[in-house]
C-alpha cells in the first residue's frame, strides 16, 4: 500500500477537527451521526486518490 499524502492527512485532520468543534458547540448530532459524517469525509478523501510516496 502506498503511503498517504501528508497534505491530504493534514487537510482531513483540519476538516474533522472543525466538524467536531462545530458539533461540540451545537450538540446538533449524536455520536452515531457524527461517526457517519466522518465516514463520508474519509470516503470522500479516499476518492481524491491523492496517494503519493513520502510527500
Amino acid at each position: 500500500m502506498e503511503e498517504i499524502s501528508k497534505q491530504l492527512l493534514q487537510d482531513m485532520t483540519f476538516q474533522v477537527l472543525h466538524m467536531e468543534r462545530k458539533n461540540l458547540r451545537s450538540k446538533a448530532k449524536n455520536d452515531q451521526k457524527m461517526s457517519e459524517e466522518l465516514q463520508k469525509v474519509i470516503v470522500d478523501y479516499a476518492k481524491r486518490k491523492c496517494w503519493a510516496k513520502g510527500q
Partner: protein
Amino acid sequence: MRFESIALHNFMRYKGENRIEFSCEEGKNVTVILGDNTVGKTTVAQAFRWCLYGAVLTERGKRQEDYQLLNSDTLELMNADSRAKVWVELVAIDEEKRYAIRREIVYTRAFPSLMAEEFQKKLTMHISDICSSQPLVEVEERKVDELINELFPRNLSHYFLFDGERWSDIAINGVRENIKDSVHILTGLSAYQAAMKHLKDMGSYSVISKFKKKITGSGNLYDSLASECQKCERAIQSCQKEIRNIEVNISNYKKKCQEVQEYLEANRNTEALQKQYRDLGTLKKAQEERCASEHRMLVNEFSDKAYMAFAGPMVQAAMELVKAVAGERRDIPHMRQATIDYIMKGGRCICGAKLSPGTKEWERLLEQKNYLPPADIGSLLGEFERTAFRWKNRVEDFPEEAQEMASQIDGCVKEYEETCNEYVMLGQRLDAHIDFAEHRNRLRRYQVGIQELGSQKGQMQGKAQSYQRQKQHLEEEMKGLEARNEENRRWRERLELAEALYKKLSQDFTMEEKKVFKELNGQIQNNFRRMFNAKEKKIELSEKYDIQMYYKTEVGYREEKNLSEGEKIARNFAFIVTIMEYSKKRKAEKNAGAMQENDTLPIVLDSPFSKLGDENIRLIAKALPEVSEQVIIFMLKKDWGYTGLDEYVGKAYYIEKEAEKSYATIRKAEGR
C-alpha cells in the same frame, strides 16, 4: 466568547425585570457595575452562575436550598393560588453564533407562610447565526447542560465567575474541579478527543469498525475467522462497557468522598464545638455538685452557730445584769446542795474523814452548803458566764465566715449559670444529630470501594487488551484470505486512511497537550510575578493542573500548602489571567492557520479586590482588559478609583436601592 446581556426577573433582590447590556467593543471591553455594600451586586453575579449551572455560590455552612431565589416582595404579594416566575436569561456570542440561555422556575406560595415552593423548572437554549437571518434553533433539552459546559466549562467557572469574598478553596457544589478537561475544552483539544472517539474509541459504531465490516472474504475459514473476530469485538465491547461502569462507580465514590471530606472540612469547627460541648457538660455537672456541697456546708454552719450568734446581745445584757445585782459570790463549779447532802449521808468525806454531826468536818460542810444552789446561785452564774464566754468565742468570726461562705456560693452559682448559658448556646449552635464518626466510617468505606474498583478496572483492562491482541491476530489472518476484488481494495484504502487519521490525531493530541501544559506553566509564572511582584515565591501547575505555590528557601523551592486568603486569590488570578491570555493567543494563531480552534472566556468579577492591596489592584486590573476578551466587574463605588480602568470602560451601571424599598434596581450610567 462574550456576554451580550443578562436579564433577571424576580431573581432574589430584583423585583420585576432588570437588564444589563455588556460592552463587547474591542478596546472598551470593560463593563462596570457599581453599588454600595449590600445593594445587590453579588446577586447579579450569582445570576450568571444560576443561569449557567442552576446553582448559586453558597457561603460556608449553607446549602443551595437555604437560598430563596424568588424575590421576597413578589412572594409576599402572592396568595395560595397564584404562581410567580423567576428567570434569568443570558445572551452570549462568539464569532459565528449567538447563544440565548434561559433558566426558569415557576413558584407557588405555601400560603399563609412566606415560603416559595418549586412548581416547574425549565432550561432552554436557542442558537442563531450572527451573520445570517436564519431562524433560531432550539437545542434539545437534554443536551443544554452539556453544551453550556462546552461553552463555559463549569470546572473553570470558579475562575471566570470570580467571587473575591465567597471564594472557597475546596470545591464548587461539592465537586472538585477537573481543570484539565476544562483546559482541553478551552484550548480546542476536546475536538481531538471527540474525533478519536468517533473514529475508533466508541466500539461497533465507530468509523474504523464500520469500515472493517465492509471488507468481505470467502471460504469457511474466512467465515470462521470473521465469526471469531466478531466474538472478540463483542468481548472487548463488553469489557469496555464494564470498565465504563467501573469508572462511573469510581467517579461516584470519589464524588461521595469529596462530599464527605468537604462536609468534614466545613464542619471541622462543629466537631471541635461538639468536644467543647461535651467538656462543658462535664464542667456543668461538677459545678452543680460543688454548688450543692457549698450550700450544705453553709446550712450546717448556720444551724450550728446561728443561735449562739443571735443570742449574743441578750447574753451580754444578762451578764451585765448579773454583775450589777449579784455582788460578791462564790462560784463552786458543778456542785449542788444535794451533793453535800449525799456526802454527809454517806458518813465519810471525800478526803477520808469520818463525818458525824457536831464534828468539825460536819460543820464545815454545812457552811459550804449555804453557798451552793439552790440556796446560792453563785455556781449557776459561774456556769452561765463560762457558757456565755464559750459561745462568744465560738461565734466571734461567724458573721464574716458565713458571709464568705455565702459569697463563695454566689460565685459558684454564677459560674454554674454562666456554664449553663454557654452550654445552651453551644447546644443551639450544634446539630446534636451530627455524627462525625459515621461520616468518617463512610469515608473509609468509599476509599476502600475506590481501591477495590481500581483493581477490578485493572483486571478488566488486561482482559480487554488480551481480546484486542487476539482480534488483531485474527484480522491479520483474515487479511490474507480477503477476496481480491475492487470493492475490498477500496474499503481497505478507506480503512487505512481512517487508521492513519486516528494515529495522527492521537499523536497530535499528545503533543499538543504537552505543549499547552508547558506553555501554560511558563506563562502562569510570568503573570504571577508581573501581577504580584512575587520574588520569593513561584507557582506551578501539576500534571493534574492543580496550582501549587512554592516558597524560596536556601536549598531551593519548597511547596507551601497553607496559603493565606490573599495568596489563594493571587494564585487564582494568575491562573485565570494565564488561561485567558493563552486562549487569546491561540485564537490569534488559529486565525493565522493553526490546526485546532479554541475559545476564549469573558471574566465576571464580583468584589475581586477586596482582599488585595492598592498596588496589586492596579497591577491586576491593568492586566485584565488586555488578556480577556471581556471584563464584567462588580465593585464598590469607593474602590473603583484604584483600578485605573476608566479608559477601558464601554458600559457602566449603578445598582441602587431606595431606603424604603426592599428591592434593588439597575440604572445605566449617563454617557456610557
